[in-house]
């Protein structure tokens, strides 16, 4: 077998040393009636060559971005990954090591965590960051738990409909068996309505969760939302798009107490949804309520600067049921990738990437809306994605037809928003060229013509 060492001679020598007659004897502590007594019903072993052939065959039944032109977004984006990120991310010493329990044998990982935390605080304008969580949605749920604990308000948390539906679902699941209610408030024109929010938020409210730019791609009036939230003594949790911070204000700058994000876009692939990177930063005062690993700087016995895991009294192996959370690892490898990615971009690269997303997406929206069939669902300014309304209300046919021509043209919104059943969400990253955007427009226009024909027959 591929990864075993033990030759028959080794086995014999080892069994002798153990004082066991056979390997089977080693399993004697398992009651016989609990043993399986048959082979697992799994397909027989493949050699590496066969595995490769098999996986290629499976992969060929998928249409990845690169084969189709991807305009899908909604929290996962086809951003460019520089080659350096893969080079560093595939270093054995990073990806085959584990949580730095022995600091002396893990200074590489620990320094990366420290650098990651530093970059995230710079990115968010907040004081502290943990070393990452699972993904954006679960990070949002953890932020809600933090806010409840910090405010001592167990009444409710407020989530506008412009927050990603899966993030809302995740928060709801996390809170299902706890005392706190999740109150969903409707939006007006694609953004939070200050009046509705003002009415909803009260002294029982632990937090308001604001996505900026929001699920529809619209830029919210974050300052106003913060004002209303703070007036009621609640905390503002911002869900942000890291790429947007090349042009938009940082969560810390508009008053967010906790900021969370989906960070896969910082150098990790879409990978059909995971693994991803949950970013979380917060004000200093909240740090001891923060879930997840945190690295800190200290000195060693020789007085040398070094790094360790710190504030572990928050964690399960010490606090058990009193831990801040049950999260016991970070997404180390993806935090590393994000660290390399942000270093590679630098401030100018981040700004240029954000600017390209902004310009290209707005160009795409305008071009689409030149066609009478299409309009923007919302008038608010957008960053890199936008909602298109199909006046013919045949979104599925339209997108299917675009797919046949090689475009993953957008995400139908009816599944989450019945009132937007005639709408789809389009995302445009820096990777999309003018030719691809023009191709999309032309395809949707033609598709529209083709689809329209049978409708008139």
């Amino acid at each position, binding site marked *: 077998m591929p990864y075993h060492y033990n030759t028959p001679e080794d086995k014999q020598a080892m069994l002798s040393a153990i004082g066991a007659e056979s390997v089977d004897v080693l399993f004697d502590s398992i009651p016989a009636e609990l043993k399986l007594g048959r082979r697992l019903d799994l397909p027989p072993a493949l050699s590496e060559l066969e595995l490769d052939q098999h996986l290629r065959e499976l992969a060929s039944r998928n249409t990845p971005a690169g084969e189709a032109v991807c305009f899908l977004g909604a929290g996962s984006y086809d951003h460019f990954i520089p080659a350096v990120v893969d080079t560093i991310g595939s270093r054995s010493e990073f990806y085959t090591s584990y949580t730095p329990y022995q600091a002396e*044998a893990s200074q590489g990982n620990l320094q990366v965590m420290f650098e990651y935390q530093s970059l995230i605080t710079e990115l968010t304008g907040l004081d502290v960051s943990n070393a990452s969580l699972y993904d954006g949605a679960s990070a949002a749920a953890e932020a809600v738990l933090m806010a409840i604990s910090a405010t001592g308000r167990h009444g409710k948390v407020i989530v506008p409909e412009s927050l990603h539906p899966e993030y809302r679902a995740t928060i709801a699941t996390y809170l299902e068996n706890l005392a706190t209610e999740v109150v969903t408030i409707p939006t007006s024109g694609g953004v939070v309505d200050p009046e509705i929010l003002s009415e909803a938020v009260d002294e029982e409210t632990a937090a308001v969760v604001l996505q900026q730019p929001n699920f529809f791609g619209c830029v919210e009036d974050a300052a106003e939302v913060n004002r209303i939230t703070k007036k009621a003594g609640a905390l503002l949790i911002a869900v942000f798009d890291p790429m947007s911070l090349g042009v938009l204000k940082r969560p810390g700058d508009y008053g967010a107490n906790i900021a969370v994000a989906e960070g896969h876009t910082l150098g990790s692939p879409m990978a059909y949804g995971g693994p991803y990177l949950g970013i979380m930063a917060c004000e200093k005062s909240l740090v001891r309520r923060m879930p997840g690993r945190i690295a800190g700087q200290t000195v060693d016995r020789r007085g040398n600067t070094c790094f360790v895991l710190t504030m572990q009294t928050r964690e399960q192996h010490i606090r058990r049921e009193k831990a801040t959370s049950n999260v016991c690892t970070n997404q180390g490898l993806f935090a590393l990738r994000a660290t390399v990615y942000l270093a590679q971009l630098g401030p100018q690269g981040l700004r240029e990437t954000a600017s390209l997303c902004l310009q290209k997406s707005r160009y795409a929206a305008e071009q689409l809306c030149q066609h009478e069939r299409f309009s923007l669902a919302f008038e608010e300014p957008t960053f890199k994605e936008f909602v298109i309304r199909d006046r013919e209300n045949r979104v599925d046919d339209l997108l299917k037809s675009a797919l046949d021509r090689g475009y993953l043209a957008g995400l139908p919104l009816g599944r989450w928003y019945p009132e937007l059943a005639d709408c789809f969400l389009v995302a445009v990253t820096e990777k999309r060229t003018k030719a691809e955007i023009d191709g999309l427009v032309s395809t949707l226009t033609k598709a529209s013509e083709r689809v329209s024909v049978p409708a008139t027959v």
Partner: protein
Amino acid sequence: RDTQLLCELSRPGRRAARLPACDVPERDIADLLPTEATASSPPALPEVTEPQIVRHFVNLSTMNMSVDTHFYPLGSCTMKYNPKRNERAAAMPGFADLHPCQPEETIQGMLALLYEMQEYFQEISGLPACSLQPAAGAHGELTALLVAAAYFKDLGENRSKVLVPDNAHGTNPASAAMAGYRSITVKTTSDGFVDMADLASKLDDEVAVMMITNPSTLGLFEPHMREIADQVHARGGLIYLDGANMNAILGITRPGDWGADMQHYNPHKTFSGPHGGGGPGAGPICVIEKLAPYLPTPIVRKEDSLYALDFNLPKTIGRVRSFFGNVGVLVRAYAYIRTHGPDGLREVSENAVLNANYLLSRVKHILPVPQGNRCMHEFVASANTLKKDKGITAMDIAKRLLDYGFHAPTVYFPLTVPEAMMCEPTESESKETLDAFAEVLFRITEEDAELLHDAPHSTAVSRPDEVRAARQPVLTWAALSEAN
């Protein structure tokens, strides 16, 4: 060698990435976005060049021990070899470049793989339903407990307690708390097994779930497993199996066959997904039939030869994260299972247990192993005698091992064993390595205590001041410049 911080390498005007020129008509940002929402300048990230980045991170990497460079017998973490073919598989554009919201007809290969993974996990655990959504073992625990809660709520039962043995992973009680339960500790005996009397005294109709790690964190198979399950079931409770130690029992025995109602897997442990310096992993769960309606959605279904996502579970708990799950980790696990097959997986466990027992036989004369002469995939030795006799602690030994080129075992866990050293060699190590490790361990116990207190000696860093780190937290570059 470079151990500066990125921010120290930064100089204004340096840069690594260059972006394409904008190829669409460009408009003034002020025309596109409200001024109050925009930043006048981007975040002050460091300004460095690409060669700096590469040298910085490559040199940092060499400051880690890792499975690819060192023996890494970190107990409970299953630091086995991470096959390179798995990495190649996960990097295939046909898997890596799929958007999670693509139409099903464009991801039939992906769904086929995920469907098979559901099937494989079910077969290996003996539990008939599976959700691939949870992102990590602890996340799987939480998800399963939420499933259990939904089930009891649906039954109209109001149960508030979760039982957890005292030698369980800390995540068990923490997950119970997060799921809204009260965590009740069940004692274990000096043999390391569940104290049946204590269990009996704590088991009542309030108990929703008993969480159990079997083989336990001591590397022992719970002899009363069936009895425990029967007793919990008799009171209407459910058994949750912490699957951290599945590496010991693949194809040999199945949690579903002992009465477990739910379990999670750690594919990054058992099925060789890499540990990534602390993640990402994955935490798929399997459950019995009656809990299946409560699983998170979507689930992959197969009809004829077509695969589809089933979102239509009316009783679902909803979701515990965005999108499908940690697919990249599952692709690696799929590659592992397919290249092993049923016989290969059984051999994994046989060799993991053989290696652990062999190492136990070599170590027990040096460091007593309180829980006997045999183990499953791991064992817990104790430096307690050595501490009393010579003042040498488990920590001293752990640190000194680094000098000899071995990563340390897990120390001070479980809490039930004083001066615990939890050793899990895994199946992917050789007898020669185990022999060398045992010899070094022996040599260390003969060394001068003073030498050990100051160990490690060969590393760039030795015995960091953790108290200072926690009391005066310096968590960012900004805090660093404030601190100085």
